[in-house]
Structures are given as structure tokens and as C-alpha cells.
């Protein structure tokens, strides 16, 4: 496996002249579970969006490299899997169609179908795979998001509030994949849950007095 590094350099984000994030710098490599904590409204979700490259920072940069070579935006998207409350599935499609759309636009290899079935089973929504997402409960939607994020075996898995909306069965499934991810790449998650934090090797706390 190629060596992965992920670096955040001096990231700052301003919203309406107000500083949300400032001086966020860290560097991660394979086999790390990295947790981001901070009070509500401290900018965790914003930071996650910036790290995933879907929101541009006001200052600073994100650097993602595979095997020593820097992968520039937007080429690092195939390496990232994200689960976030701001990221929804298409309601008018079934779970299967959502995953198939994702596999197609990501141009995944043929085996994606087996992996998709495996994930659906692991998260306990295999029996509902032919149901349109709008009929799902919020917990089921959350599980589907995990299937979507893990479908392409991302080397960097980013989870925003990993255990929100999930019952104990769902949480167990998520934790199983969190451990797996730590072995195969980088795991990054934003949480305030004490139990989740036990999975982290490093904890980064967004300071309160930052703004």
C-alpha cells in the first residue's frame, strides 16, 4: 500500500467578517485515527468541509499526498469518503440506485456491486435496498450514507458526528468500519461523544477562545 499523508496548513475561514476557524494546522499519515472536538458552533463541520475540499478556506491550504506525490484538487476526491449531516442521498432513488449512481460517476471497477451488497448487509438495510430513500427513517438514511462513503474504499474516511441518529446496532457497524479504516488508511472524525473519542489516537480540539 502506498504511503498517505494529509496536511492542513494554517487554515482559516471567515464568515461575514467573523473568524470561524483560525490557524488550523496538523499533519496525518497512515494508520491514524484523528478526532476533532469542540463545542457546538466551534466550526467542526466547517473544518470538515474544508478538509474534504468542498468548501474553500479563506486562508491556508489542504495538501493530500499519495506515495509522496501531492494530489491536487479536484483529483483527491476519489480518495475521500465523507459522512456528514449536510450530505444527503437522492430521495427519489432507491438505496441501490443511489449507490449505483455513485459507483458510475466515480467509475468504479466491476466489483462495486458485491461491495455494495456487503455494505448494505453490514449496515442492515439490505432488505430495504429497493425502497426509495424518501420512505427511509433518519437512522436508515444515516446508514445508507455510510454505505455511500465506504463504497469506493476511500483511503481517507471523514465522519462528521459518526454516531448521530444511529441505534446500538448501527453504532456497532460504524465502529467496526472505523477500526478497519484505521488499519487501511486515515480515519478522521468530528465528535464530542466520549465513547467515540476512545477510537482516536490523536485528538485535536478547536479552541474556544479562538474568536
Amino acid at each position, binding site marked *: 500500500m502506498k504511503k498517505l499523508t494529509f496536511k492542513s496548513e494554517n487554515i482559516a475561514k471567515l464568515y461575514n467578517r467573523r473568524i470561524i476557524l483560525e490557524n488550523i494546522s496538523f499533519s496525518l499519515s497512515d494508520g491514524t485515527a484523528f478526532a476533532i472536538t469542540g463545542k457546538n458552533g466551534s466550526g467542526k463541520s466547517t473544518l470538515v468541509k474544508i478538509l474534504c475540499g468542498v*468548501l474553500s478556506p479563506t486562508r491556508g491550504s489542504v495538501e493530500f499526498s499519495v506515495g509522496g506525490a501531492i494530489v491536487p484538487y479536484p483529483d483527491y476526491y476519489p480518495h475521500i469518503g465523507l459522512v*456528514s449531516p449536510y450530505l444527503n442521498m437522492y430521495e427519489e432513488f432507491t438505496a441501490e440506485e443511489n449507490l449505483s449512481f455513485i459507483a458510475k460517476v466515480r467509475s468504479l471497477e466491476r466489483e462495486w456491486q458485491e461491495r455494495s451488497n456487503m455494505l448494505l448487509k453490514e449496515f442492515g438495510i439490505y432488505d430495504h435496498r429497493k425502497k426509495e430513500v424518501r420512505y427511509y427513517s433518519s437512522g436508515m438514511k444515516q446508514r445508507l450514507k455510510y454505505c455511500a462513503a465506504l463504497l469506493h474504499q476511500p483511503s481517507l474516511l471523514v465522519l462528521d458526528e459518526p454516531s448521530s441518529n444511529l441505534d446500538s446496532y448501527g453504532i456497532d457497524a460504524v465502529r467496526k468500519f472505523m477500526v478497519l479504516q484505521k488499519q487501511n488508511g486515515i480515519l478522521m472524525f468530528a465528535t464530542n461523544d466520549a465513547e467515540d473519542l476512545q477510537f482516536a489516537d490523536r485528538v485535536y480540539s478547536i479552541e474556544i477562545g479562538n474568536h
Partner: protein
Amino acid sequence: MMIISTSYHIFVKEFVSEFRTRYALNALLMFVVTTLSIILFSIGQESPSIDVLSGTLWIVIFFSAMSGLSRTFVAEEERGTSLTLRLLVNASSVYIGKLVYNFALILVLSVIIAVSYVLFITEFTVKTFEIFWLTILLGSAGLASASTILAAIIAKANTKGTLFPVLAFPILLPLLLTCINATKLATEGAFLVEAVKEFQILISFTVVMIATSFLVFDFVWKD
């Protein structure tokens, strides 16, 4: 080519989504029926000049485009799927996919409008059909080219409903005026060659719009 296949999948997704939800199409068809019947009622026994009729044809097409084309991006933003899409594919594929979908939608609409216009409004007689249908085709392409980037802008604004026609009108005016002019030529029975200048304007407008949108779309999409 990666970009073509991903754009194609986005287009298919839009198409299936529209087919399932019928957000745009049903409402748009009713819109067309309503506006056309208003025109028919207001004409009554009068016989308005062909210039006025060419103008109203494009008014109907413009406003149906305005009520239908903004959906593509607004729906993504409202349902929170835009972040999903942003993580999946690069901005250019999204732009191309949505542009092609918008073009298909507006083309279907304007063909429906044009056919019913020719059928129901007897005073509106087209003599050179080549010019007429080419104008409909190129006009739809132009409308789609400018509307796609504007729809992306509007999806990020707070008040979405009324904003679209306000932003689009000044930008689309040269296109609309040219379309009206070409339609007049078609009703006057001009030869195809006489409308070449109009077609050149329509094509260059579309090309300039798409090229500019392509350059700036990333700023709007990743904001």
C-alpha cells in the same frame, strides 16, 4: 474520456429524477397551456401583426424557461444533495451534465410551444420552416447556456423565486431580440441564406456563454 461519461451519468440522473418526481415538466406544461390560452383569449377576433405574434412566442418561451430551468440547481441545494455531488465529481462534469439536461428540457418545451402556437394561432403563418425550426433549436441552446450558470448562482441566494428572471432578462435580451427577428424572417418567407447573420449571432452567443460559464462555474459550485 472520463468527463464525458461522468457528465452523461449526471444527465441520466437528472432525467430519471425528473421522470420520477415530475417537479418541472407537469407544472411547465400547465404553464404553457395557461399562457397560450391567455394569448388566444386576448387576441379574440382581432388579427394582431406578425411582429407582435413573433414577440409573444418568445415571451412564452422565455418565461417557461425561467420557471423550469432553475430547478436543476435549486433542487440539489434544497435537498442537501449538492454536497454529495460536489464530493463525487468535478465541477465541469456537473456543469456539462446539467447544461445538456437543461437544453433537452427547454428544447422539448419550446417545440411544444412552437407547435401549439402554429396550430392554434391562425394568424401566425410560418413560410420558411427551416429558419423557424433552426431558430427554435439555436434559441433553446442559447437559453440553456445562459440559464445554467444563472441557476447555479441563484441556488446559492436566499430568495430564489423572483430572482431568476430579473438576472436572466438583461443577459438574454440580445438572444431574444435575435430570435424574434429570425422568427419574423421565417414568417415573411425569407430564404434560409437571409437568416445566416441571425444564426451566427445565436451560435456565437451560445458558445461565448458556455465558455465563460465553464471558466467561472467552479467558483459558484465550490462556494
